[in-house]
């Protein structure tokens, strides 16, 4: 396949997918536990509510959480597709919220190392699903391991989810720095989750952008832009939804956080 990236340098020469079919968006984070999967699942529902065909692909191979967040108990998963025990059609499942999911499944632990085989399989699957959807959201793992960076490299756009907590911000900064330098991305979206007050997202985004400008050092005219795509304030509905493993957008559609997710979807739809 002509789009197969050089296995020796997955992070420095990401494949630049030609726009056929779905828009691919990686949702990632520097640190785990910042609500990445929560944002992904609810964003998928918000996009679906706007008439979009959405697939969420559990690209957090080996450490997947999507089934837990959505309270799904899949019989067939990406693992079965990888091992050719199931077809793609069988493994793509409807999720609450009107979107589709392709779950990694617990058998994927063996795929959490980026071997050429895993690379090819993941790329192949994304190529297969792209013509069938308007959006493919890649729920990646946290951090900057080679699997995570590779999964991100398969997407046209990236959203980094961070909370205002210092360790989360430091790790988000490191992730964005790697994306800007190793993947030569010029534009990354930021979602500040669990914001404490209105305007905190903007403040954090501005601060990250300043440090990036200083230390990533863009050449003139090639400025790196970190754009605030959303600010989600933590409210009671979020806590309830997470605890009950419900899709917030479905069960608490009126809450402030749901509005923030809908705004995020609108921004992505332009």
């Amino acid at each position, binding site marked *: 396949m002509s789009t197969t990236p050089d296995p020796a340098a997955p992070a420095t020469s990401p494949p630049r997918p030609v726009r056929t079919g779905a828009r691919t968006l990686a949702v990632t984070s*520097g*640190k*785990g*536990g910042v609500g990445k999967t929560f944002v992904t699942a609810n964003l998928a529902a918000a996009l679906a509510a706007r008439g979009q065909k959405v697939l969420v692909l559990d690209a*957090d191979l*080996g*450490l*997947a*959480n999507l089934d*837990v967040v959505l309270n799904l108990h899949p019989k067939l998963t990406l693992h079965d597709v990888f091992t050719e025990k199931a077809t793609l059609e069988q493994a793509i499942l409807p999720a609450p919220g009107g979107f589709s999911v392709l779950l990694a499944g*617990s058998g994927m*632990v063996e795929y*959490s190392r980026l071997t050429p085989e895993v690379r090819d399989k993941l790329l192949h699957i994304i190529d297969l699903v792209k013509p069938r959807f308007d959006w493919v959201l890649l729920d990646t*793992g*946290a*951090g*900057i391991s080679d699997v995570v960076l590779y999964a991100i490299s398969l997407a046209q756009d990236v959203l980094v989810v961070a909370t205002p907590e*210092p*360790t989360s*911000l*430091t*790790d988000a*900064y*490191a*992730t964005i*720095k*790697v994306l800007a330098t190793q993947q030569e991305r010029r534009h990354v979206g930021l979602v500040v989750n669990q914001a404490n*007050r209105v305007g905190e997202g903007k*403040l*954090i985004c501005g*601060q*990250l952008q*300043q*440090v990036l400008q*200083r*230390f990533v050092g863009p050449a003139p005219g090639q400025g790196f832009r970190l754009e605030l795509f959303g600010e989600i304030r933590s409210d009671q509905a979020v806590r309830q939804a997470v605890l009950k493993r419900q899709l917030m957008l479905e069960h608490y559609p009126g809450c402030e956080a749901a509005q923030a997710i809908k705004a995020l979807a609108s921004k992505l739809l332009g």
Partner: protein
Amino acid sequence: MEQRLPATPQIDASALDLEQALQLLQQAGALLPDEAPHSVAWLQAVLNALCDLSSRDALTGLVNRRSFEMALAREVDRVARAGEAALLLMLDIDHFKAVNDTHGHGAGDQVIRCVSQAIEQTVRPMDLVARVGGEEFAIILPNCATHVGLAVAERVRESVSELDIEIGPGQLLNVTISLGGAFAPQWVRSSPLLWMERADRQLYRAKAEGRNRACLEPQIDSLVSAEEKGMLFASLNLETQQDSP
């Protein structure tokens, strides 16, 4: 607990053949229970002692591989739920085969005993030290902050390198260890196997880089310099202060 079910038939402990079990305990130097022989409490104490015996390594008294794997699985589960940082160190004695070949297996056993004692005395009581192979050890360190990981590993390495091990009358031997470490992925379900592999990979790196050293899987925040951190939080902190009444 309230007993709702009808009482199950009592076991007559005196009818059980426990001779071998008791011999095993005696031979291992385990204290035999004080309770009245063949009482329920006594039988429970015998079982407890047997459990303890089967979870420990005979040479060092450390936790053995089987019980280490159980503890590791529990820790993975705990880290996934609590999001607390936990470190796994895998280590082995450098050039141990040469010790055995040159000084004999008795000396080798003595080295293993001394090294295991040194490790146990260096880490916290809550940390679990296990002998997982011939000259291989593992340490699970729950609630270990990422920024102190390397310092802990270095402390263990130093404590072993400072040992003068007496392998015969007036015959002292010094050994070193190599360590590899990885933190459990927080907030996510991982597997004990994957965690061990990650730590093992760092152990290979320590060996390849010349032994007698500790290598930890790089942490994401190691990409961020103090200067960057300072700038990142300078105005954010200011903002927070202005906000507070």
